């Protein structure tokens, strides 16, 4: 069976430029929304997954679920510290930090609206345990002082959080002596200071979490079993990666459900648009269809030609939409993660999987919209077509 050449299909779209552009434009908008939603979920997930390290383990109070409402007292922290199998740094110190984590309500730059920022008390050890965190301005805080370092998203997004400025909370003034970049992980939305100073300032006597690195990742289950068997311990251990993935679950899920629902609703509109266009194309080219058939092209060839036209139309729309969506990659968004009740900054992230999904989605719309008209075109009787011309 001879196929109708592709150039014929493409030229048809070009003849009705306005109609083609309107239909493709509608589709492009749908594709754009579809892609940005996927990118958003992906961005949140990537941010939080990048926060965890594969061989770090986090200890939280049983059933806490987030650092904010967890408590690990000094006795339990000491037991964790004495565990065998914790990795050590070059000078032989164990790679372990005991961290109080609190939320602090700070005003955003520009709007002045307050939002909850995570304040983490930590030790200089933290930089070794979280290699993705690098100081980009200033220096690290000195232990035992009211100095703090802020993550990049906080430094640029909140009043008084930039280098050299001071923040007032917990009855003290804290000087920002450094700004760190955490390579788009969750730490970018945090403020770090000295753990003991934070405990005193916030008048707490328990840590929120204890994070340590194990020398041999395969030992995790054994260590976990040992801790669970200890009657003094009310903590549970989790691999850090898993912990941060769980933290992002609800928000990412919410956004993807909302987005999918929207995309489905939108796609109905776009499919209708494609259908109208294709029906009109078929109706106005009845004579051509008859001529093609009279020349010896089969029904199947006509079907494929019109379906191809619709698919090409949706591909154009899909590419325009994707191009617009890829521009979103430069946009930073920050919102509240309602699972942790704290601010999280993330970026839209375009992956090749999303590109494929989006294009397939666009082609699917084109297929559904174009199939019925193409089917109708292929079913026409040659005589009727030629008479209509």
């Amino acid at each position, binding site marked *: 069976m001879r196929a109708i050449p592709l150039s014929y299909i493409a030229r048809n779209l070009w003849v009705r430029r306005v*109609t083609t552009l309107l239909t493709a434009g509608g589709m492009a908008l749908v594709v754009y929304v579809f892609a940005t939603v996927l990118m958003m979920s992906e961005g949140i997930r990537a941010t939080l997954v990048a926060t965890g390290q594969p061989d770090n383990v986090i200890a939280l109070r049983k*059933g806490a679920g987030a650092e904010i409402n967890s408590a690990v007292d000094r006795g339990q922290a000491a037991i964790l510290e004495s565990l065998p199998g914790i990795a050590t740094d070059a000078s032989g110190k164990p790679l372990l930090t005991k961290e109080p984590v609190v939320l602090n309500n700070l005003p955003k730059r520009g709007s002045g609206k307050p939002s909850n920022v995570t304040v983490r008390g930590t030790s200089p050890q933290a930089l070794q345990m979280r290699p993705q965190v690098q100081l980009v301005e200033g220096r690290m805080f000195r232990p035992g002082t009211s100095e703090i370092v802020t993550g990049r998203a906080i430094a640029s997004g909140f009043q008084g959080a930039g280098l050299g400025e001071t923040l007032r909370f917990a009855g003290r003034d804290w000087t920002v002596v450094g700004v760190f970049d955490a390579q788009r992980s969750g730490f970018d939305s945090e403020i770090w200071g000295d753990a003991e100073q934070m405990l005193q300032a916030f008048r707490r006597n328990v840590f929120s979490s204890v994070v340590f690195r194990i020398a041999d990742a395969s030992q995790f289950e054994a260590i976990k079993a040992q801790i669970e068997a200890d009657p003094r311990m009310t903590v549970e251990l989790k691999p850090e990666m898993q912990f941060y993935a769980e933290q992002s679950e609800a928000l990412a899920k919410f956004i993807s459900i909302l987005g999918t629902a929207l995309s489905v*609703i939108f796609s109905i*509109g*776009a499919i209708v648009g494609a259908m109208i266009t294709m029906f009109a194309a078929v109706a106005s080219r009845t004579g051509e269809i008859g001529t093609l058939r009279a020349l010896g092209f089969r029904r199947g060839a006509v079907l494929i030609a019109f379906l191809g036209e619709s698919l090409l139309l949706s591909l154009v729309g899909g590419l325009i939409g994707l191009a617009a969506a890829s521009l979103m990659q430069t946009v930073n968004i920050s*919102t509240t993660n309602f699972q942790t009740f704290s601010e999280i900054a993330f970026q839209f992230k375009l992956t090749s999987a999303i590109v494929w999904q989006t294009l397939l989605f666009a082609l699917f719309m084109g297929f559904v919209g174009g199939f019925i008209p193409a089917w109708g075109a292929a079913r026409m009787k040659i005589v009727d077509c030629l008479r209509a011309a």
Partner: protein
Amino acid sequence: MFILKLLLKNAFRHKLRTSLTMVGLVVAICAFGLLRTIIDAWYAGVEGSSSTRLVTRSAISLTFPLPMNYAQRLKSVEGVAGISWSNWFGGIYISERNFFPQFAVEPVSYLALYPEYRLKDAERIAWLRDRQGVIVGRKLADKFGWKVGDQIPLRGTIYPGTWTFNLRGIWDGAEAKTDESQLLMHWSYLNESIRKLYPKRADAVGVYILGINEPQNAALISQRVDEQFKNSLAETLTETESAFQLSFVSMSEAILVAINAVSLIIVVIIMAVMANTMTMTARERLAEYATLKALGFAPSFVVKLLFGESLLIALIGGLAGLALTLPLAAGFAQAAGTLFPVFQVSTLTMSLQLLAAIVVGAVAAAWPAWKMSRIDIVQGLRHVA
């Protein structure tokens, strides 16, 4: 009358195309309405707040408690008529998916501050008598099929352990905007249980709720309260209840902005589809319009015809979409359960939906109408669709 008949006949000349366009319109107008309703639902907490209540919380952040002894000092602040307090319990009922707000409150004073919670006297007394008793809103009880006398187990996240409560009453909201999706328990019961486990965490209050008689002085009273505790170990931040609720809404501002943008995009998409239809219509009827002009009809008549047809399709689609929004919103509210305490399609939303339909109809016809009014008669008569 004649014109209307002509418009109707014209609009439905291409039955399939017109009905497809309308399907698109109905879907878009419906989606637009639903999205606006979702945004409204987000602000429901703000709408449902009263101007005669202030909320005092820790200045650091909501996660820090305030000392119990502040209650006495707060009472003595000039302008404060009533006072109650509540703690966020944050328990899990069976699984995380069944989220609903739970507060531990001081019962008598709390109910006095929230007169919009309509509770039967017998149930109120039963709740006050039973320290393990709780009351819930009607919507929440319906969602889980609870009846008075049932036991409700909650797994604590902030307050460790499994807690079992007895359901002693179900309140109805005085108005549609009243939140009926909460659970209220005895603060004293929670406090005493915590004192046994963690003596240091006892006597802590999440937020104080202050009743005031002069809403116009809310700012002044808030200032007086915060000055009381300035430079203390636990500084306070006092704001009106609606500002307090707004602070939660503004947290998810990014998402709200996105939803808003999306609802506009919907309208634009449907505009593209509709404009497409109208362009085709105009192109097909070139010869007719030319005939009309040759008969002496003014160009404005042709414009009227096109606009009328477009608006007619838009209005029929818009009204159908509007009619469909209400049952859909009801179904959505059922599905979302307690996620949105209040979920209602407002009159503003409905009028905006109609406005959107009219705008779409007008914009879609603009370009073809302008083109048709300027066609050359001879060219038009020669044209075969």
